[in-house]
């Protein structure tokens, strides 16, 4: 569904992604693993075109999306959940969802506010609270819910387990499994290997902006030396 071919991305003069390629098949959850600063978030942003790769291409459903504006990328059915959440803290929970709202899309679930409140019951109680009043876990749920309001075919999920309580991490894992069962394709960046193993079918490891491993999770588990070399314990 998504193909990243040999992209090179820069922040100013810093070369962050080096000739990176990866593949996300339809209906799968692919975990993008790597240490802090390895380039996971930049990969997400390069797919979303929030960072423009200087070379290489990103294809979505066979169409070239490199060079498009981020809103066009979103319109094609790619949802982006940023690492730092970036919810609109002055807006209420419901208003945050309104911002994410997009017309129904063929082949994707058409989400409504009520469906999302079923998925994240904590948010239902807080629908009229402003974003800044939410806890870290609630903010994380809201940022995912907001992206789902766009009825995406494919979601970029940047470190959903970061900085939230273990009980919320478990809930996140269940949500991702449910979304997957409904046909959503996911690229998930993670530092938490246990979380990735709970939800992902395949893994890509990046180190210093280069791909160090790709394969199924079973293959990764069969190579503990790879796992230990590139991931924090």
């Amino acid at each position: 569904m998504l193909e990243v071919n040999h992209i090179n991305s820069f922040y100013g003069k810093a070369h962050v992604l080096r000739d990176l390629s990866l593949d996300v098949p339809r209906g799968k959850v692919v975990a993008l693993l790597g240490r802090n600063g390895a380039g996971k978030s930049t990969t997400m942003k390069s797919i979303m075109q929030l960072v423009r790769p200087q070379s290489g291409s990103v294809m979505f459903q066979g169409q070239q999306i490199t060079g498009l504006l981020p809103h066009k990328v979103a319109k094609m059915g790619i949802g982006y959940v940023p690492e730092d959440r970036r919810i609109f803290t002055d807006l209420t929970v419901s208003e945050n969802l309104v911002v994410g709202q997009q017309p129904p899309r063929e082949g994707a679930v058409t989400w409504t506010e009520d469906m999302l409140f079923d998925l994240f019951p904590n948010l239902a109680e807080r629908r009229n609270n402003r974003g800044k009043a939410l806890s870290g876990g609630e903010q994380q749920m809201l940022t995912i819910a907001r992206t789902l309001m766009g009825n995406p075919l494919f979601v970029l999920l940047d470190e959903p387990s970061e900085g939230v309580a273990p009980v919320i991490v478990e809930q996140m894992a269940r949500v991702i499994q449910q979304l997957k069962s409904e046909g959503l394709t996911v690229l998930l960046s993670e530092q938490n290997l246990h979380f990735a193993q709970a939800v992902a079918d395949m893994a890509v490891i990046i180190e210093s902006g280069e791909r160090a491993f790709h394969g199924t999770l079973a293959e990764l588990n069969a190579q503990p030396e790879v796992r230990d070399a590139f991931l924090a314990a």
Partner: protein
Amino acid sequence: MEFFVAQILTGLANASSLFLVACGLSLIFGVTRIVNFAHGSLYMLGAYIGLTLMETLPGHVGFWGSILLAGIAVGLIGVVIEMLVLRPVYRAPELFQLVATFGVILVIQDLALMIWGPEDQLGPRAPGLRGVFRIMGEPIPKYDIVLLIITPIIALALWYMMARTRLGVLVRAATQDREMVGALGVNQAWLFTGVFALGSALAGLGGALQLPKGGADLLMDFTILTPVFVVVVIGGMGSLPGAYLAAIIISVLNVFGVTYIPQSTLVLMFLVMIVVLMIRPYGLFGREEVAGEHGQVGEPEEPIKPASRQTRLIVAAGLVLLALLPLIGSNFALVLSTDILIFCLFAASLHFLLGLGGMVSFGHAAYYGGGAYVAALLVTWTNTPMELAFLLAPFGAGLAAIIIGWVCLRLTGVYFAMLTLAFAQLLWSLVWQWQDVTGGDDGLVNIWPSDWLNNNTAFFYFALLFSVGGILVLRHVAHSPFGYALRAARDSQRQAEATGIDTQRVKLLAFTFAGFMGGLAGALFVFSKGSVFPNELEIVRSFDALIVVFLGGVKTLAGGVVGAAFFKGVEDILTRFEYWRLVMGLLIIFVVVVAPEGIVGSLRRAARRIGLGKEQPS
């Protein structure tokens, strides 16, 4: 008591246009982060277009229809401005866009002059609302009462739109994090255009609504701009209720001011603003600015370097040529060159503050005009010899800068800019209204240099010495440890503090130093012209400097000087033509669009592209 109520009602009615224009400006700033200097011009267009429509459309329907149509027309003009002028420069460094809006002001000024002529036009009375109502025995114009009723209705409608519609939600979301809104599939370009159109329409509506109370003239663009800035800042950038409340406060205050202390009405407004910002740094309903946290634009900056051998040689050759000018040039060339030199020093002092210190001052004329007035006042009232007055002037300006800087540096970003503007306007109003001492509008005259300098050639060398000397000192400081500390404080205040730099102190010193140098330029100016008038302290003078610094290139050391020299020269040629503002405005817009890094930055890039100059190591 009756009189008191009547005063308040008049104030409330006056608040109407002010509120409409201010909330338009506030909306536009909130979403696009553009301080639209041209907002007063849109207000002026609303008035003129409304007037023309009212002359053709008859009766009640014609009158109110004209107001509505004027709003719509100005909204459409806003769309054109946004798409042609602003859209190409959204990715330019922050605040660069305001230069483009300044170009728009000039263009609109001349277009209005061409279409409607130079005479002030009286607005028609609203049909059926010619007389007065008696309220507690006091006469209140009927139209005022209508305004009193309409304004809250418009305010409520706007509030409803912002609070309850998807468009309003998107606007508020974009105010906070427009990049994220884009990543969620909203076309920002469309949102920006929409908001700009709405804000423009509100300004046009404000212009047309005030017609029966005022009229239309070519100065109203700048006349409204200052109170509108004040209202937006007092209310809090981006807050509608804030803008409404602040418009009422300022208007009511103004009505009472005119009655009780007519000499100080202008000063009053700025005093209120300063007091409010001292207590609530982000205005009554504003919130702390988080600009730059997300969606930062522009490439990382190249570090500045000492001039290369090549550059030094070119500059030295230029200086030799300048020094030979009295032998080869005409008298006129000498006077013009003196003007340019002075303006270069003024621009370099602002560039120091803005480029190296990251402090965007909208009121740098305070120190330039301030220096000029210090010298002029000393000469006029104490018969101080010219040489002494000249030396004391920069210290006077520096003293003003210490005080103003100390207050302003509590704020950052656009609030800082607005507060510096307020102080500059405060000084200007003081000079304007304190006639006994400053001569008011008549200025101070007969401020000539001593005999040994009192000819064009001698004064040219004098100006050359101090301008070039001043600019070299500014450059030298940029490369000194203090300059490093200043740039550290600009780029990362926290990190600079963690390394032991007292950033507030460094910034205040820089602010004072820039004020001192601005004052030096002002002192040169007053003795070159022999007189000084309040317009040297005016908002336009501050903008002049701001424009040339941005157009020259904020991020290059030579930017201010090159921009100043270029534009002063161009201005001299252009002002010989009738519609020079139009050409100047278009030129400014053109430079902004094709050279978003400023003249120096873009030339450097072009030179690198064709293989000249050193390639940056990557």
